[in-house]
């Protein structure tokens, strides 16, 4: 049943008892043409685009827990595409273009809210960095405005422009903003299932069957399954899956944390990022102040980090927004992010034939969801890296052709 206001009203007469399942819980079949491992936004989206754009049938998404339960449901929901390097900009901007039509396309409101994203600059060096990125974005066709201090203070009420590191300016991407994270997984799942994709939850992959260097199927907690092609999209467990297939990745899995305040009436209408003061903040539609904390430097699969990462962002947050001092933290949580040396993802082939991987999004995966899913679907469908995916191969770590967003901009995601 189509989701619409009309149907909502109609269904209210039957007390909403006639809504169907958004997605069902089918049994795992014996064989699929394509299996996507990982039921987050990227994995579900991949299955959706495989079915929709490449007309493929007989696809399954295997999720070890419940869909959207990994980083999709644990991030601070920021979306932007103002990356420095052409390769990243193309990929992330492809995502933003898709975000703009995603609610309509999926018939599921993902609440993409383009409320504008400010990267604050506090030093001369920051200004050089945002100017460089702003020009690069502009010439790549990505919206970018370089603002001076006065413009920033006018646009962001209550911000402290004269702290220890006074605000000098900002890079504004108006098309940036936030979305409702859970809705992305659920919307893709519902749309994918409508196209015939099997979504299998509580199905953990325990082994990858490989014959003569080619993947043939998977061992799971729900039994064996054959597959002609397998796409791994297991953020937080990329190395674990790669190890099953017999190869290593240039990845470390580390805890990343975030927190929200109690809900309050609207006070912050845009997304703020500051490297010098280490703040990453927005306000959700529910009214919670959503704050991203840093990632710990140690490897962990426990979905919890050290408390000092939370504490360390409190000084900066209150420094930048003194009016937040009396607000209260409602909830803090952690996720596992797979970090690559250049902070860019890995999308493409693996040493195993017909086994593909999409991972290493580090702290920046959510914003890329539709773009990543779309380009990975093309890669899996055609068997060759898509044009957009090509620069993000594993091989760049041998050739040295890194897409070094980390070194270039030192920008947190």
């Amino acid at each position, binding site marked *: 049943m189509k*989701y619409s206001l009309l149907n909502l009203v109609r269904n209210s007469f039957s007390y909403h008892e006639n809504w169907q399942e958004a997605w069902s819980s089918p049994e795992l079949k014996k064989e699929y043409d394509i299996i996507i491992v990982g039921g987050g936004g990227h994995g579900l989206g991949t299955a959706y685009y495989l079915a929709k754009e490449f007309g493929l049938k007989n696809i399954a998404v295997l999720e070890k827990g419940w869909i959207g339960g990994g980083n999709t449901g644990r991030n601070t929901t920021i979306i932007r595409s103002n990356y420095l390097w052409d390769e990243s900009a193309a990929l992330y901007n492809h995502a933003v273009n898709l975000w703009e039509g995603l609610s309509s396309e999926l018939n599921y409101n993902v609440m993409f809210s383009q409320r504008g994203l400010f990267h604050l600059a506090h030093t001369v*060096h920051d200004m*050089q960095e945002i100017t460089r990125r702003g020009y690069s974005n502009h010439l790549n066709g990505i919206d970018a405005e370089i603002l001076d201090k006065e413009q920033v203070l006018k646009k962001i009420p209550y911000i402290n422009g004269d702290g220890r590191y006074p605000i000098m300016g900002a890079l504004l991407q108006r098309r940036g903003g936030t979305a409702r994270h859970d809705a992305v997984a659920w919307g893709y799942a519902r749309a994918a299932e409508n196209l015939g994709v099997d979504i299998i939850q509580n199905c953990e992959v325990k082994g990858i069957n490989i014959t003569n260097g080619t993947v043939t199927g998977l061992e799971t907690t729900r039994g064996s399954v054959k597959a002609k092609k397998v796409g791994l999209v297991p953020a937080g467990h990329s190395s674990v899956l790669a190890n099953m297939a017999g190869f290593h990745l240039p990845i470390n899995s580390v805890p990343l944390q975030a927190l929200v305040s109690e809900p309050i009436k609207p006070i912050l209408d845009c997304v703020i990022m500051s490297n010098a003061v280490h703040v990453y903040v927005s306000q959700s539609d529910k009214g919670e102040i959503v704050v991203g904390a840093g990632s710990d430097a140690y490897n962990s699969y426990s979905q919890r980090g050290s408390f000092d990462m939370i504490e360390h962002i409190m000084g900066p947050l*209150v420094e930048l927004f003194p009016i937040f001092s009396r607000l209260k933290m409602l909830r*803090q*949580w952690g996720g596992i992010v797979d970090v690559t040396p250049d902070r860019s993802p890995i999308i493409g082939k693996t040493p195993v034939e017909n086994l593909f991987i999409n991972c290493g999004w580090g702290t920046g995966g959510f914003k890329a969801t539709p773009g990543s899913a779309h380009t990975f679907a093309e890669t899996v469908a055609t068997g060759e890296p898509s044009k957009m995916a090509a620069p993000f191969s594993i091989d760049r770590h041998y050739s040295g052709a890194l897409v070094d967003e980390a070194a270039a901009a030192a920008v947190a995601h």
Partner: protein
Amino acid sequence: MFNRNRLISGGSIDRNKPINFKFNGQTFKGYEGDTLASALLANDVHLIGRSFKYHRPRGILTSGSEEPNALVQLNKESRTEPNARATEIELYEGLEASSQNCWPSVKYDIGALNNLFSRILPAGFYYKTFMWPPSAWMFYEYFIRRAAGLGEAPKEKNPDRYEQKFFYCDVMVVGAGVTGLTAALAAARSGANVLIVDEKPEMGGYLLSSKAKINNMDAKEWIKETLSELNSLSNVTVLNRTTATGYYDYNYITALQKVTNHIENSNSKLPRERFWRIRSKEVILAQGAFERPLVFSGNDRPGIMMASAAQVFISQYGVLPGNSITLFTNNDHAYTVAVEAISKGAKVVVIDLRSNVSNEITKLCEQNKIETYNSHAVTSTHGSKKVNAITLQELSNDKQSFVGDAVTINTDLLLMSGGWNPAVQLFSQSRGKLKYDDQISSFIPDVLVDNQYVIGTNNGNFNLKQSLIDSLNAGISAAKETGNKKDIEEFISEASEPQEFTTSEVVPYVLGSKPVTHGSKHFIDFQNDVTASDIFLAQREGYISVEHTKRYTTTGMATDQGKTSNVNALAIMSHIQKKPVGEVGHTTFRPPYVPQTFGAMAGRNVDQFFDPQRLTAVHQWHKDNGAVFEDVGQWKRPYFYPKNKENMKDAVNRECLAARNSVGILDASTLGKIDIQGPDAAKFLNLIYTNAWSKLEIGACRYGLMCNEHGMVFDDGVTTRIGENHYHMTTTSGGAARVMSWLEEFLQTEWLDMKVYCTSVTEQWTVLSICGPKSRELLASLTDENIDNTNLPYMRMRPIKVCGIEARVFRISFTGELSFEINVPARYGKFVWDKVMEAGKQYKITPYGTETMHVLRAEKGFIIVGQDTDGSATPSDLNMDWIVSKKKEDFLGKRSFVRSDTARENRKHLVGLLVNDKKTVLPEGSHIVDEANKKPPMKMSGHITSSYHSPTLGYPIAMAMLKNGKNRHGEIVLIPLMNGKVIEATVTDSVFYDKEGARQND
């Protein structure tokens, strides 16, 4: 009418100390010891606020920190606090509070229209709509955002202060109810260092409100005695008003202590709150349990309250919140409240879901003249701003239908009790594993983490005597684990409560007059307005897992984090899925236990203490002489020194020309400096730098580039050989710490056999850099030594006395001028600076800042690592092949140069750019394109890294990284600006001035 619900006696309030306060603008009276909730109830105010989604009127549900409904906006202006729980706010003179989430008033709230439309606003309705037209979400969102949120943030800076404290102890006890007190006393008597915390102002927990007996004393007396002993012991710290909020690995516990925020006009020297960071060897959790609401139709009206809360209001605050009371229960324990209320003069009717109650209860009801309806359900409630009547009906034996007619009775207070849920939130945060217990129909601790105990009702044990004996043993055992083994007497002999909680008869929801899914308001999460029908809807639509149901319906996500709602939601899911609750699972409990103030976590790390400022020894002089400062890392560096209201451009021009034509002086003290010693120092430098260091003579200086192992330049600087095995390394100001750890990393982890010792000496030296044609004359006037070109040639260092102070003078140049870097111990820095300035007067010595330094070095084509490089440039990309040794077998980064991409010919190379119009100063960061289209996108081939007007040359100069730039000198390239203008520039060599280096060398 004031305090019409106040009892004449009883409770912990002080009736001799009345307190005036305001709620929604109206003045009321309460007493010292009241909470805002108890004082409002005393004044018969039940309507406190409006709910989140449907804006339904809400009152006071509980008496503690689990309160979901009674949230208020506390205080005004800069001291205002949103979402404060009325049940926890201690009353003080002048307190002002108001209702939230309502307009124009809590009584007449426009937002309540939502309630009328609630039928089309089920869980997750927003996922299904607001999608048309596709671009209109921002429009809808504007209104949704305004409807959401609860209270308001202050609009001014917080005038209050917060402090933080580290604390270490042997045994920490969380919760000072009778079990916590017992454990703490046992541990303390055994000799352990004990910390006991409790969130309430008055310690003692729920039994403060009971008729329980311990060791044949009234519980209250026993609590008093125990507390007084604990307070008297030097090895015990007792903290009231202190909530343990987070339980992290290795028994790391955070706690928030209210210090003055419950006190009138807190302009005291004390902080508002103190944030405790506690590391305890052993932790004993004794947090008790929360009473569970019953899920029935209309269970959310003001005047509907937890039975235990009424018990607390009566016993502790002397407030009888209603006179004609109905108690709706499924267990024995709640009868205590009925008895208590009757003893205070109320009329009580009990509606019990159970068909059979024990003889003991029947007798109790007879004795106390309590009217009872067994096997009955409350099917609906009535009253618009407060409950005034309820309808009840008898249930069939299987509880699936009704028998008999519905009866409506008047009541002014409906109490409910659905059993008890142990407060397992902190336990679960600690990674403890839970299991479902059928006896109490709730989750209890199952697998504990290391060095942890859970006792009493917190552990699901509702038998008082057994709980106290367990607590005693836990205290002794925890102390023993920490080496405190004093033998102690078993000080618990007897304990009992009038009605103990053993079990309850649980129904997932109570049948109402309408089917539960047919628009019936069976609330589960009161604050977020989640009803039983929402859970049904979520399950029906496939949001089956607990996390999906939670996120789809938002149950348990309100500011109380589901303390009253979680178990009820799970029971309904279990009912729908036809699975035991234990198999349905539970969501993750996340810190903090109760919302925790941002400001307290920030502590003193704000304002002037936000980040340290690093200042050079000459800083005050710069300030006195009008310098504008630039932040470079934590350093404050003079950016330029405007004179007579000069603008930056004029000041920099003046400073540049002074340095080129006479003498300029720069405070270069921030430069990173590392003292390197040891027999293997040269060998070490050979591996660290790209060039060769073996043959450097003593006293000679050499410029070096450092690459990381990826072959990318990451720092540079001049290193000087001071002695046989002694070097002085300089680094960039921002990179000093990074380089230091880089050196240590290789010495400590890779080349363990090397004898090299590195010491950071950045702060130890003040560095005055004088440059310009007159700099030698000036220095000569300050020293007795011969410093001519033979005795102190370019790239040499001499230890000489300057102004009578032992100094190291380096003849190195970052400006291309004749230049001396005078290093003196920092304690003489200011003295020497003053002397140099004085002696320099005759040369019109001009202090210059970082901007002038940047212009001067750019004229010479010297790079700045971090500005002209970005972590993706090799030495060869920077045209610095000359500094990369071809002979050395190995150095850090070398191997990476020959990888296919790194060895590629057409990488980006450093070039110079001269704009063809000789006027435009290109923006640093603008990009070079091969073809300028009318509109983006345009293919980029490089970017401007440095760009200035050169006062020396009289026209702008720029440096850029340009694709294949080495082979493109002489080409014309295009730089499109943001405003659409396209600037033409010619690619050149990056050295613009004095290419032969005559000025610096002579």
